C-alpha cells in the first residue's frame, strides 16, 4: 500500500461550493438550448461593462475554489499518519504569506513595527524604539533604500503584467482572424476599435489591469507586507484573500437552498392554484412579515444555543466554524426564497393559461412533464437573474450579520469580522486603517462587478425593467 502524501478532507461548505459551481455550469449549459437565454448571453457578451465584470469576478471564484480544496498533509516522521491541521490548496500556495508573521501591527510596506518596544542596547542603556520587522523588508540593510527597492520590484512586475495582457490580446486577435477569415492586421484593427461581436477590448483591458495588479502585489509580497499586518502580526493580504472564500460561499451556497425552494413552491402555487396556492402564499406572507435581520438573528441564536449544549458533537474548532457557516447559509437560504417564489408564482400563473401549456394538457401529458418540460425552461431566466442579483446582497449581508454577532464564527476569516475588529483599530492613535481599507477594497472588488453584471443581465433578459433606451 502506498501512502498518499495528503489525505483529502471535504468540509461541508467545500461540497456546497463545488456543488453550486457544478449546478451553475449545468444550468448555463442547458440554458444554451433556450433561444431567449442564448440571445441574452450574446447581448451580455457585447456589453463592455459585463465582459470587464466577468474578468474581475473570475479571480475571486478561482481563489474561492482553490480555498475549498482541503487536505491533511502527511507527517514526515511517521509514514501513513496525517497531521491534525486541515489546510487548503490556497494555504499551500500562500505559505510564505501565512508563515511570515510579525509580532503585532505594521503599516503597509512598513519596515518598522507599529508599536514601540523596549530594547536594551549593547552598552546597557534602555530605549523605546520601533523595532525592525522580522520579515517586512528585512533584506534591506539600509532603511532609506526602501523606495528604490520597491521601484526595482515594481518595474519588472509591470512588464510581466503588460506582457500577459499582450499575449492574451494576441491570442484573441489570432482567433478573431481565424474565425472571420480576415488578415491578422485587420482583425487587430477591429479589436482596437472595439468593433467586435464580443466586447473583447474591454475584457482584455480588464485582464491586463488585473495582470499588472497581481504581478505588482506578488512582486512586493515576497519581501513586504503589502497590506500591513494585524494585531497578532498576520499578513492582512493573506487574511483578505482567505475572506474571499467566506464571502463567495455566503453569496452562492445560500442559493443552494433558496432557489430550489422558490422554484418548487412558486411553480406549484402558480400552476396548481387553489389550496396549494393559499398555503404557499400564507407561508411567505408569514415569513415576509418578520423583519429579515431579526428572523436570521433568531435562527442563529437558536443554533448557537444548540451548538453550545452539544459541544461534544463538534470535534474541532475548524469543524465548528464550518458548521456555523453551513448553518448560516441554510438560514439565509430559508429566509431568502420569498422574492423569487412570488415572481415565479406570478409567471407560472400566466404561463399555465398559454396555448402551448393548454394543448400539452389536452394531449394528456402528465402534470410533472408539463411542469418540467414546459414551465421550467421558460422560468430559467428569472432564476438566473435572481441568483446574480441576490449574490451581492448576500455578500454585503454577511458583513452586517457578523457585526451584529449572528454571522460567521468569530474564528472564521471574513470581511465582516475584519471590519468588526478594524472599527476599534481606527480609534487608536495613530489609527490602524489598513485592515479596514483592505476589507473595503476586496469587498468592493467582488460586489461592484457582481452588481454591474446583474444590471447588464437584467437589461439583456428583460428590456422593460432595465430602464435603458
Amino acid at each position, binding site marked *: 500500500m502506498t501512502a498518499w502524501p495528503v489525505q483529502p478532507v471535504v468540509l461541508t461548505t467545500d461540497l456546497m461550493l463545488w456543488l453550486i459551481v457544478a449546478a451553475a455550469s449545468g444550468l448555463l449549459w442547458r440554458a444554451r438550448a433556450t433561444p431567449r437565454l442564448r440571445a441574452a448571453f450574446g447581448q451580455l457578451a457585447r456589453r463592455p461593462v459585463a465582459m470587464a465584470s466577468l474578468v474581475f469576478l473570475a479571480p475571486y471564484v478561482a481563489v474561492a475554489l482553490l480555498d475549498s480544496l482541503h487536505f491533511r498533509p502527511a507527517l514526515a516522521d511517521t509514514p501513513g499518519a496525517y497531521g491534525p491541521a486541515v489546510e487548503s490548496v490556497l494555504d499551500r500556495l500562500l505559505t510564505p504569506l501565512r508563515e511570515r508573521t510579525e509580532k503585532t501591527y505594521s503599516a503597509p510596506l512598513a519596515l518598522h513595527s507599529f508599536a514601540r518596544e523596549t530594547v536594551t542596547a549593547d552598552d546597557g542603556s534602555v530605549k523605546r524604539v520601533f523595532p525592525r520587522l522580522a520579515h517586512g523588508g528585512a533584506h534591506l540593510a539600509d532603511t532609506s533604500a526602501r523606495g528604490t527597492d520597491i521601484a526595482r520590484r515594481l518595474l519588472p512586475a509591470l512588464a510581466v503584467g503588460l506582457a500577459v495582457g499582450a499575449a492574451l490580446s494576441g491570442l484573441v486577435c489570432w482567433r478573431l482572424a481565424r474565425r472571420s477569415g480576415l488578415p491578422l492586421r485587420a482583425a487587430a484593427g477591429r479589436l482596437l476599435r472595439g468593433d467586435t461581436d464580443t466586447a473583447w477590448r474591454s475584457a482584455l483591458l480588464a485582464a491586463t489591469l488585473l495582470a499588472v495588479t497581481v504581478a505588482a502585489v506578488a512582486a512586493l509580497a515576497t519581501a513586504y507586507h503589502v497590506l500591513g499586518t494585524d494585531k497578532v502580526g498576520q499578513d492582512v493580504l493573506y487574511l483578505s484573500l482567505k475572506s474571499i472564500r467566506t464571502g463567495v460561499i455566503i453569496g452562492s451556497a445560500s442559493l443552494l437552498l433558496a432557489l430550489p425552494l422558490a422554484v418548487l413552491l412558486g411553480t406549484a402555487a402558480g400552476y396548481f392554484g387553489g389550496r396549494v396556492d393559499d398555503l404557499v402564499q*400564507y407561508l411567505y*406572507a*408569514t*415569513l*415576509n*412579515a*418578520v*423583519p429579515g*435581520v*431579526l*428572523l436570521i*438573528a*433568531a*435562527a442563529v*441564536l*437558536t443554533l*448557537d*444555543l*444548540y451548538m*453550545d*449544549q452539544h459541544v461534544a458533537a463538534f470535534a474541532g474548532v475548524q469543524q465548528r466554524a464550518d458548521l456555523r457557516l453551513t448553518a448560516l447559509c441554510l438560514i439565509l437560504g430559508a429566509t431568502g426564497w420569498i422574492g423569487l417564489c412570488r415572481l415565479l408564482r406570478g409567471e407560472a400563473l400566466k404561463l399555465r393559461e398559454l396555448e402551448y401549456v393548454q394543448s400539452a394538457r389536452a394531449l394528456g401529458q402528465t402534470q410533472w412533464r408539463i411542469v418540467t418540460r414546459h414551465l421550467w425552461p421558460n422560468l430559467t431566466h428569472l432564476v438566473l437573474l435572481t441568483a446574480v442579483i441576490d449574490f*451581492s446582497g448576500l455578500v*454585503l449581508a454577511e*458583513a*452586517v450579520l457578523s*457585526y*451584529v*454577532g*449572528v454571522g460567521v464564527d468569530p474564528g472564521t476569516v471574513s470581511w465582516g469580522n475584519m*471590519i468588526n475588529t*478594524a*472599527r476599534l483599530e*481606527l*480609534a487608536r492613535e495613530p*489609527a490602524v486603517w489598513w485592515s*479596514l481599507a483592505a476589507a*473595503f477594497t476586496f*469587498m*468592493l472588488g467582488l*460586489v*461592484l462587478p*457582481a*452588481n*454591474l453584471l446583474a*444590471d447588464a443581465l437584467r437589461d439583456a433578459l428583460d428590456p422593460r*425593467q432595465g*430602464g435603458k*433606451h
Partner: protein
Amino acid sequence: MTAYLLRRLLYAVPILIGVNLLTFLLFFVVNSPDDMARLHLGNKHVTADAIATWKRAHGYDRPLLYAPEANGVRRFTDTLFYEKSARLLVLDFGHADDGRDIGRDIRQRMGPSLAIAVPGLILGLLTNITLALGVVFVRGSGLERAAVFLAVVGMSISTLFYIIGAQYLLAKLLNLAPVSGWQDGWAGLKFLILPLLVGVVSGIGGGLRWYRLLFLEEAGKDYVRTARAKGLAEGAVLGRHVLRNAAIPILTGVVAVIPLLFMGGLLTESFFAIPGLGSYTIDAIQSQDFSIVRAMVFLGALLYLLGLLLTDISYTLADPRVRLQ
C-alpha cells in the same frame, strides 16, 4: 371600503399567529428552557436545582402547549405558549431576562428611534427624488451614465463603511460633529447630524436607481409626449407632469415603510449609541435575551402588516381609479 379593510384586518390575524408559532418553535421547541437556563447560568457546574430556580424565576417552568395536571381552561393557559407567545397578540410583551418590563422599554425607546428615522426618511426622500429627477433630465448623456455607475458603486459599499468612514473623517479628523451619543431635547440636535447624514448618503445608491426607473417609466408615456409636443420645456414637463404622476407609487412605497420607522435602524443606532429600539434589538441579540428578541420579532411583523394596510388605504386616497372591494 370598510368591509374591505375589515377583511384585510382579519387576514392579518392568521399571519400574526403564524409568526407567533414560528418564534415559539424556534425558541422553545428546538431548544428547551433548560438549555436557556444553562446558557444564562454558565455551562459549568450547573445543578438541576439551579436550573429549576432560574426557570421558576423567569416563568419558564411550565409545559409547552398543554398542562395535563391543571384544571379546566388552565390546562391551556398555564403553558409556555399561552404565557410567553400568545400574550404578544394583545401586546403584552412580558419581562426581559433581567426583569425589566419590555413594554415600557419599547415605549421609552420609540422616541429616539423616531427622532432619527422620521427626519432620515424625509431627507432621504427629498435627496433621492431631486437627484433622480436631475438624472432623468440629462438622460441619454454621458452624465447620466456616470451617475448611474456611481449609484451602483454606492450600492456596492456596505453600510458599515459609510458609518465607520463618517465617524472617522467627519467626527474624529474634522471634528464637525460628535462621534456618537444622545441627549434629549434640542441640545441633542448635534448628535443627529452624523446618523442622518450617513442614512441619507448610504441610501442614495439604491434610491436614485429606484426613483430613476419610476420617472423613466412615467416619462415614456403618451401624455408626456403631448406635453412636450405643445412646447413645454423639459424642466416643466418633469416637474409638473412626471413628478406629480409618479407621486402615487412614491407615496404608497413610503407609506408601507412608515410603521417600520418605529423599529429604528439596527446599525445606525448601535454605532451612534442612540437609545432607540434598533440598539435595543442589537443589545438583546448580543446578550441573548430571547424574550426581547421574541417581542421585537412580533412587533416588527405587526408594524409590517400595518404598513400593508396603510398602503392599500393610501392607494384609494391618492388614485380615485382604484376601488377596493
